[in-house]
């Protein structure tokens, strides 16, 4: 028994680019938006508000939301970049539904695109954007080495091993191998030895345990009120949302002495994330719990974040999230198909504010229109988790067909 939906997605558009078929973020965003508006059966003049996540890395102009709207010649009553780090893009649906509920908008466009791999040397600039420029950048950390701080503690506290983490990469690649736009599809399915034979990027994380930059993607969703849905629109309903953030830089997190989020655990810790609080809010709003969820799309940029996020979402006890992968629950026949496009580990991470790829995958699966594999049991409810920063922010949506 779910609560009444708070919003409906009535239009969806996606766009893809590769090295051989280069498109920049503006082109990807326009292509996705044109498709989403056509899918919703509305024109750009009916859009009242626009929300994006952070500026794309491949086009780092500030106020990118304004730049896009002006490029489209699409005046709006409100627009903003939402930057709970990468979790902000997931939270755009929450902001859209609040504007709609307040009577301030009839249609809201939620949009993101990026094509980091095609335009940017992300390795060279990576940690400078997400590490403390005063106290951390002077030591040359990379984003994998910052996330690896959590992996090392997770191993230490819960007895997890590299072989365990290999299970996550294998499970995600099983989906990604069959998705036409997954960056690692060309490698086919892999086994644990493949992962453990790959070189370290930053210990204890090996190459197959790290996400790759995957071409470029754009995604656009048209959001409106549940009672504004017309029959042909194949709506996907938003039942609950939540978000939380705890810090910007890891040094700030490590020096926190308390946290108002009840389930965050004792501090210091690197094994609980703000997703715990985001999930609590979303489940409460939807009047659903983990056992009601048929499908999950999560932000797993490094393999240890799979089990950690599964725990934070309530699918496993702390330290046992790996069982969700090991027992095959995330697979095509599982009770919790997860990252059905391969996730960031296999589909790839097109940029820094890139959760629109998982939102699009969710809508496609709930509509029964996947580009890759469909779970054996067609999902009716889905949970989308977005994360951002160095373990900084989490955002959760509960969606239903």
């Amino acid at each position, binding site marked *: 028994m779910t609560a009444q939906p708070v919003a409906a997605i009535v239009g969806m558009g996606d766009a893809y680019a590769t090295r051989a078929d280069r498109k920049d973020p503006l082109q990807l965003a326009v292509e996705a938006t044109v498709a989403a508006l056509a899918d919703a059966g509305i024109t750009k003049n009916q859009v009242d508000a626009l929300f994006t996540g952070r500026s794309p890395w491949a086009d780092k102009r500030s106020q990118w939301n304004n730049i896009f709207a002006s490029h489209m010649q699409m005046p709006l009553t409100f627009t903003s970049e939402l930057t709970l780090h990468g979790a902000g893009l997931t939270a755009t649906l929450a902001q859209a539904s609040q504007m709609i509920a307040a009577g301030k908008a009839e249609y809201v466009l939620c949009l993101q695109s990026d094509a980091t791999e095609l335009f940017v040397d992300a390795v060279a600039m990576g940690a400078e954007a997400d590490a403390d420029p005063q106290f951390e950048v002077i030591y*040359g950390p990379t984003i994998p080495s910052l996330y690896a701080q959590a992996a090392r503690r997770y191993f230490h506290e819960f007895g997890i091993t590299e072989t365990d983490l290999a299970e996550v990469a294998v499970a995600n690649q099983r989906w990604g191998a069959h998705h036409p736009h997954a960056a690692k599809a060309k490698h086919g399915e892999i086994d644990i030895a493949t992962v453990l034979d790959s070189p370290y990027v*930053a210990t204890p994380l090996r190459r197959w345990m790290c996400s790759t930059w995957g071409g470029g993607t754009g995604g656009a969703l048209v959001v409106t009120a549940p009672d504004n849905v017309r029959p042909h629109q194949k709506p996907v309903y938003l039942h609950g949302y939540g978000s939380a953030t705890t810090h910007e830089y890891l040094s700030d997190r490590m020096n926190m002495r308390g946290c108002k989020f009840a389930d965050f655990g004792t501090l210091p810790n690197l094994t609980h994330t703000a997703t715990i609080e985001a999930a609590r809010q979303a489940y409460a709003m939807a009047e659903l719990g983990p056992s009601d969820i048929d499908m999950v799309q999560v932000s797993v940029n490094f393999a240890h974040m799979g089990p950690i996020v599964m725990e934070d979402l309530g699918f496993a006890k702390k330290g046992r999230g790996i069982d969700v992968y090991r027992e095959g629950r995330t697979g095509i026949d599982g009770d919790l198909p997860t990252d059905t496009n391969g996730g960031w580990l296999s589909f790839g991470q097109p940029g820094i504010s890139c959760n629109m790829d998982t939102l699009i995958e969710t809508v496609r699966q709930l509509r029964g229109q996947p580009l890759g594999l469909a779970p054996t049991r067609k999902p009716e409810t889905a949970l989308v988790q977005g994360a951002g920063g160095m373990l900084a922010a989490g955002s959760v949506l509960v969606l239903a067909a």
Partner: protein
Amino acid sequence: MSETTAHNDWPQPYRLLDAAPYWAALDEQRLTFQRCADCAEAVWPAHSYCPYCASSALNWAESAGRGTVYSFSTVMRGPTPVWASITPYTVGFVQMAEGYMLFAQIEGGPESIAIDQDVTVRFVERGAQTIPVFTAANPG
């Protein structure tokens, strides 16, 4: 994004005013941190007001430079040429004896570093700035 300035290719700290005494003390090879006179907590990174009790009574104190490894990762792929030239190198959090967590380089490879291991500070010059790095404490 704020730009850090580089000096002989080493990135230099993006200096904020709260931390000016920290960088000045490092030039004398002294490692310092703040302590709140009201709640007695060690405060790090540098602040104007205590993040725990909002007091402005923050005093600079000298650290003995000893702590234990909380977590660490050895970078195999350096982000820029200057970092690539010293790979592999290890970065991590040191739980300082005075009660704060300091991010730094920890000297040694993954086989020679362990969580909870004792480490002690030493100072290196990187470009125009002296910075603290940590090395395994001498057991004797």
